[in-house]
């Protein structure tokens, strides 16, 4: 593989060797020195250009000549510089923010539509943090995850739940990266807030399909979130005071202008009110983002970043619980030469929770940890050809649960579920290839491997069946244990390998429209176990191994992209079809809590999803915004397989919990004047598939519900309207202080959207009734944001 890559490089280098020179450099924001990711750098009057990478780096190779090197970036003034390309050279840019806020754009596209039309990259939504900040703020804080849900193909499994669903995929099929570190839980307070503090975030990129070969390990999407580097020009403070939480970020230069730092913190203070009200209960969250970088010289730069967040709940003296993510990342950017950029990352991340049950004197802990090494290179071979390649390794340590008595008198025995260990390797190469002026392609290959490592015993089952179909009773039962096999530390229990081809094509029809097509295959080796209606913070991850197979997914997408009215409006239409093999499904009555042998509770099933997405945007003017509509279907099927029998739900296809036939999101912002901006969101979605009763009978003196087939009913449709208003008081020109008030109403017409409907027998009347739980009815908010 390595030789192949080298050969490839050599080949392309020779091809582009004649009289071509390279200009490379870094694009930064003038005001704070942040590197610009996704800025478009091109030679004016030609079709030769490059997009800056995550570290602001670009490299352009062109024939000898004199050009105007131009950079353009959302919300910034375009800049140009004359260059005479007769030798390889470096040009760095510092770009200024657009001064006229009137033209502020709310755009989710790649910078310069010209480029986005030509780029083969499809099914990608890039949100600059400035864009997100212009969207209506409704729960007092800018929320990245909620902003993403306004895009086509992205939904949420109702209120009160964390995570998000992309194109009919499950929550655990999203790879969520914060500065490259895996984040296992994206929400605070069950989805009320996201774990991403907008003050610490630079930009966000969501790959709904066409995932580039450099990412792997999840089948549905990649959410790539990058933290700010920190202001390298001056010390700056940003913050906000809200009703529920407040936040403060400090950033500034460090190491004598060779680096910068950022520290951002956020905390809720509901606890103060609860304590004041003499309540015994506590709930709250906090998080901390850290980042610093150090420039060794022009070719070497180091970055260190970290995140730590936690939610904690306490109920009287009886129970308490806390959970959260922690991650750290050390990166080394090295520029070999004008055309070869590299980055080495050492990453650690962890998610854990603990429950303490004071009355029964025990606690319960569970965690997933991983250590990750990644080496990524990008080779700018020519203006027609760019090559990404790299290697990565992740070591996982799963601690599914330990029950520990906290006193000698505890009635509970110590119990630890088997720790699981695994190694995931990746090797990839990906090319961006401009085949003709109108046709560009991106194609690559990833090889992923996974080894479940020893240091534990695995149960052996009669006939190799951890789950057996009992044909007499017509139910699935746990298999018969016939012994166990011990695997030594370091020994491999089971290993897997998969080739994952990825390809996409863009063909430009004319100056304002293009068609794109893509295919990608991806493998996923770790799975979040959840048999509940919604994913909970207490769900546990597990690894593929002897009994649980890796998920394999194929996605096909086709899209049409068009700009109207001199790019004032744009239209994106995409269709997709996705299949996933080996999606875990749960047998009736599966018990996942404290379960050491998960294989006795699950069967390997399959899933498929297809849909059509429309996005119409207005990109300029006082009024900006978009309308997105998705028509889709997501289903799953689980046959009996080795367990025998018809399978789950009689082996029929059934709706996945995240199937939404219709999903309409409208978001808009209207800038009245320099002081006032108004915003609104409107969301309408088909209700979530659920399982309702289809009859009742008397048993043990109670009315017992009999239930229909899985997910054969639906909750009522979900809809709501959010409104926001932002007021910026007059700013005294000389003062550094800049403040704004943000008023928001979430769910303005107080729709009681059902998060769940529960069917029970009324304790006093004895009749059956359906009870709706609505989590967020109307929620007003006020926040004061400041910068100085």
């Amino acid at each position: 593989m390595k030789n192949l890559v080298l050969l490839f490089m050599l080949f392309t280098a020779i091809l582009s060797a004649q009289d071509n020179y390279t200009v490379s450099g870094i694009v930064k924001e003038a005001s704070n020195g942040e590197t610009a990711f996704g800025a478009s750098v091109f030679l004016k009057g030609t079709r030769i250009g490059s997009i800056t990478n995550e570290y602001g780096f670009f490299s352009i190779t062109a024939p000898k000549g004199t050009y105007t090197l131009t950079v353009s970036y959302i919300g910034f003034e375009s800049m140009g510089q004359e260059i005479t390309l007769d030798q390889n050279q470096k040009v760095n840019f510092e770009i200024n923010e657009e001064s006229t806020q009137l033209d502020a754009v709310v755009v989710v596209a790649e910078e310069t539509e010209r480029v986005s039309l030509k780029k083969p990259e499809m099914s990608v939504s890039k949100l600059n943090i400035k864009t997100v900040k212009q969207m209506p703020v409704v729960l007092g804080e800018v929320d990245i995850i909620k902003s993403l849900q306004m895009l086509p193909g992205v939904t949420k499994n109702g209120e009160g739940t964390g995570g998000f669903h992309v194109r009919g995929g499950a929550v655990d099929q999203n790879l969520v990266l914060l500065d490259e570190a895996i984040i296992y839980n994206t929400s605070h307070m069950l989805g009320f807030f996201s774990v991403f503090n907008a003050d610490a975030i630079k930009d966000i990129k969501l790959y709904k399909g066409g995932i580039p070969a450099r990412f792997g390990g999840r089948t549905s999407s990649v959410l790539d979130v990058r933290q700010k580097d920190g202001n390298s020009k001056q010390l700056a403070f940003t913050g906000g005071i809200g009703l529920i939480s407040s936040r403060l970020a400090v950033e500034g230069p460090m190491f004598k202008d060779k680096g910068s730092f950022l520290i951002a913190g956020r905390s809720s203070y509901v606890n103060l009110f609860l304590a004041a009200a003499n309540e015994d209960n506590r709930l709250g969250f906090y998080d901390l983002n850290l980042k610093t970088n150090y420039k060794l010289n022009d070719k070497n730069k180091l970055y260190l970043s970290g995140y730590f967040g936690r939610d904690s709940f306490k109920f009287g003296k009886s129970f308490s619980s806390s959970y959260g993510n922690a991650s750290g990342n050390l990166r080394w950017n090295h520029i070999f030469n004008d055309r070869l950029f590299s980055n080495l990352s050492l990453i650690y991340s962890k998610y854990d929770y603990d429950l303490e049950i004071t009355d029964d004197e025990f606690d319960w802990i569970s965690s997933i940890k991983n250590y990750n090494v990644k080496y990524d290179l990008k080779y700018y071979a020519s203006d027609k050809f760019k090559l990404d390649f790299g290697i990565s390794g992740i070591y996982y340590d799963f601690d599914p649960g330990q029950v520990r008595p906290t006193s000698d008198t505890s009635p509970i025995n110590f119990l630890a579920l088997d720790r699981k260990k695994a190694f995931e390797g990746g090797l990839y190469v990906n090319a961006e290839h401009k085949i003709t002026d109108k046709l560009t392609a991106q194609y690559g290959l990833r090889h992923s491997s996974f080894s479940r490592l020893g240091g534990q015993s695995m149960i052996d089952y009669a006939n190799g069946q951890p789950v057996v179909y009992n044909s007499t009773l017509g139910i699935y039962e746990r298999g018969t244990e016939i012994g166990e096999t011990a695997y030594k530390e370091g020994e491999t229990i089971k290993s897997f390998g998969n080739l994952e081809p990825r390809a996409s094509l863009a063909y430009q029809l004319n100056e304002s429209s293009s068609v794109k097509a893509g295919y990608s295959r991806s493998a996923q080796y770790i799975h979040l176990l959840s048999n509940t209606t919604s994913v909970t913070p207490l769900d546990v991850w597990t690894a593929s191994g002897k009994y649980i197979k890796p998920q394999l997914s194929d996605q096909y997408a086709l899209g049409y992209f068009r700009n109207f009215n001199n790019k004032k409006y744009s239209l994106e239409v995409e269709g997709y079809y996705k299949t996933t093999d080996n999606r875990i499904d749960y047998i009736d009555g599966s018990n996942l809590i404290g379960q050491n042998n998960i294989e006795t509770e699950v069967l390997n099933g399959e899933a498929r999803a297809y849909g059509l997405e429309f996005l119409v945007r207005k990109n300029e003017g006082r009024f900006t915004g978009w309308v997105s509509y998705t028509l889709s279907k997501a289903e799953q099927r689980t046959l009996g397989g080795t367990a025998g029998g018809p399978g789950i739900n009689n082996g029929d296809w059934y709706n996945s919990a995240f199937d939404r036939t219709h999903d309409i999101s409208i978001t808009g912002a209207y800038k009245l004047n320099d002081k006032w901006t108004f915003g609104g969101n409107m969301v309408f979605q088909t209700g979530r598939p659920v399982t309702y009763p289809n009859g009742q009978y008397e048993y043990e003196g109670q009315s017992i519900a009999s239930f229909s087939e899985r997910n054969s009913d639906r909750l009522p449709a979900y809809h709501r309207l959010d409104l926001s208003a932002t007021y910026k008081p007059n700013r005294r020109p000389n003062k550094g202080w800049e403040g704004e008030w943000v008023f928001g109403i979430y769910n303005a017409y107080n729709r009681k959207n059902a998060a769940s409907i529960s069917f029970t027998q009324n304790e006093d009347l004895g009749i059956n009734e359906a009870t709706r739980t609505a989590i967020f009815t109307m929620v007003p908010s006020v926040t004061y944001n400041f910068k100085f």
Partner: protein
Amino acid sequence: MKIYFKLILLLLTISLASCEDVIDVDVQNGVSRLVIEASLDWEKGTTGSNQTIKLSKSTPYFDTTTNTGVTNASVRVVNDNDGTEFVFTHQGDGAYTTNNFIPVVGESYTLEVIHDGETYSANETLTPVVDIDAITQSVESGFNDEDLEVNIIFTDPEAEENYYLFKFQKEGDLLPTLEDGDDEFVNGNKVTWWFEKEEDDDTDEIEAFMPGDTVSIEFYGISEAFSNYMQILIEQAEGAGLFSTTPVPLKGNCINTTNADNYAFGYFRLTQVVRTSYTFQ
């Protein structure tokens, strides 16, 4: 253990700004099935010879008909070991009884019900239960630190896996509360199982136990298979909340040997039970 997870998740949900109301919902109508409530419970200290099996039909979910007894079936139970046959005769309203049943711990029995030309059959082994060591009351255990709860104290046998069913009913309450338990985390230990009344936010009535209240207590030893069944039944009877397991069509052990698709609801169980009551001081 599961109960703690459920409680915590329930509390998390409540702690958010949630609101609950009763609404009208259209549900599907499944086929009406025979319901076999064949609970042969041998109360400790009695002969266990008087037993009742109830047969009824399932109805649409919001139907309020109560008169669903199946009156024209034939019901018998056979001891698999010695072939002794116990015939249950109809007493009206779907109740079939016998007064000569002979319960033997550890022995297997077969139920046969013939109804509308179809034969239903089930098989189960009689599971014993340990004695209750003591029953106490307290306020500091349980979920609410201010409410009274009753504690059932018993010693779990270490040698085998044990499954338990508890049935509590406060005097004057319309419905009993069922709870299931096993010894996964407490094998061989002295176990304290508490029960307190949950507050109902919808009514202003005081739901918690008060001194002078009497609660009836039934403590069953049950088979693993029946425990699996009851676990699902109990969880589903609590309603399908946000963090509940996705509800499933629940199948008991009464199979239809004539037409497998037309299986019966309910269960044929053989248990030993301790029945008692407790009056709060």
